[in-house]
């Protein structure tokens, strides 16, 4: 069983790298949706006899609905309407950002050995997956020019935070987690509106154009 759980964590990290390397926005959105689906599986797989079944179910279903279905659908609609197909010239080239992402993940695996968890008996890959995913999300936000790519980066970052949150899921009431998911949904919704505004003003989603604003 632990082999399969490891595989889940590794897949989450591989999807991070895939999103970093893919230039097609639609492929990126699908990959992030798949990552959301994997994250929805995680609370179920990590649950042991002590955890409450209802709590786990709420967490898993909430993540599935928001991360794997809701937000990707919103983003896919936004890309379709703004007719942006791909990220052409990111600030850091795809190969370089892939290498940077890999370095970050390697560092995360390396250093997490020195970060002892207050709660014993958790999967050893949980912390490196979380830190590595946050790093890749940050890299996406910083290096992509198109607004959709930056929103994807935000989602990946949030996924990393979600993984870390699983550590505490035994102690947090499910209302808090539902609130966090709702927050995320609202944030992406607002980002969608902003993207729509950028698109209407500049007829492009290139955020570089925002720096040309003068009063």
């Amino acid at each position, binding site marked *: 069983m632990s*082999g399969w759980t490891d*595989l889940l964590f590794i897949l989450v990290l591989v999807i991070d790298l895939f999103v970093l390397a893919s230039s097609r926005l639609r492929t990126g959105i699908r990959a992030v949706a798949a990552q959301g689906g994997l994250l929805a599986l995680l609370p179920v797989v990590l649950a042991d006899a002590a955890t409450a079944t209802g709590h786990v179910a709420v967490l898993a279903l909430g993540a599935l609905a928001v991360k794997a279905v809701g937000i990707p659908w919103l983003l896919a609609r936004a890309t379709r309407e703004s007719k942006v197909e791909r990220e052409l010239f990111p600030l850091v080239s*795809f190969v370089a950002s*892939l290498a940077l992402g890999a370095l970050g*993940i390697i560092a995360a695996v390396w250093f997490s*050995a020195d970060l002892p968890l207050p709660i014993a008996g958790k999967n050893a890959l949980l912390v490196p997956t979380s830190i590595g995913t946050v790093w890749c999300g940050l890299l996406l936000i910083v290096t992509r020019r198109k607004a959709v790519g930056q929103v994807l980066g935000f989602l990946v970052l949030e996924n990393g935070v979600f993984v870390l949150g699983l550590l505490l899921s035994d102690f947090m009431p499910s209302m808090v987690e539902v609130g966090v998911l709702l927050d995320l949904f609202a944030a992406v919704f607002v980002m969608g509106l902003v993207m729509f505004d950028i698109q209407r003003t500049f007829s492009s989603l290139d955020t570089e154009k925002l720096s040309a604003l003068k009063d």
Partner: protein
Amino acid sequence: MNTMLLVALQLLAFLLAPPLLLGVIGRVKARVAGRTGPPLLQPWRDLLRLVGKGAVYSRTTTWVFRAGPVVGLAAVLAAGLLVPLGGPTSIVSFAGDFALLAALLGLARFVTVVAALDTGSSFEGMGAAREVSFSALAEPALFLGFVSLVRSTGGLDLTHLLGDGLAAAWRTDGPALLLVALSIFVVALAENARIPVDDPATHLELTMIHEVMVLDHSGPDFALIQYGAALKLYLFGALVVKLALGARFQEPLAAFAAFAAGQVAFAVAIGLVESTMARLRLTRVPQLLVGASVLSGFALVLLLR
């Protein structure tokens, strides 16, 4: 006596089966496209036809051009002795032989490139430049994969890396080995000039990589090159199949049958990849190969943890 027979079977399959692998790929591609496709023996017939022809040599070429195909085939044949080809052991085995395997494949590539440059054709020079730059990116992926296997199985020779050492390794480090297998599969596609990297069926010199280097070879020389390419595909297939199978079958004949079935599955997988994917733009190929290296490196980090 039994071991002798097994080794003979292994060698015979290595010499006879590789063109059939190409035949399987051709059939799969044709089936997916809704055609019947050429018979499985067609690659063998093509080779025999080429052997029957005469060779034409340009006056600008030297002995380097003639040595290319012969040395290339010899290097790949020698590499075949190092890889366990379905039997319990490879024919020649010593600590660190995976480095010699990569070196022999590199030698085969080197003589092909030098022969291509010897013709003085600008197209072939371009192909040669691409071939070496892409293979330079593919090699780290292969070596990181081998190092991961060394770390995981604790052996230093290919017989152990791809044989009995794997059974325990799959139980403990399954996910990491899966990453290595995926990475070596991508390397196999790149090294054998298959589709996401190079299109073996293209006829436009500007976009060809491997095929453009051998444009000037004709007749028996070209047959040697094609045969060598098929052998190389079989070798990479052996790496992927042995890695994926682990040491699941103890009975030698059953193991060999599983190996043969695995090779066919490998060819079918390549055929499906070729049917469903388009060739990547040249500028995107390094990204794929760096991605493969990253996968292998990631596997190594997971194993070192």
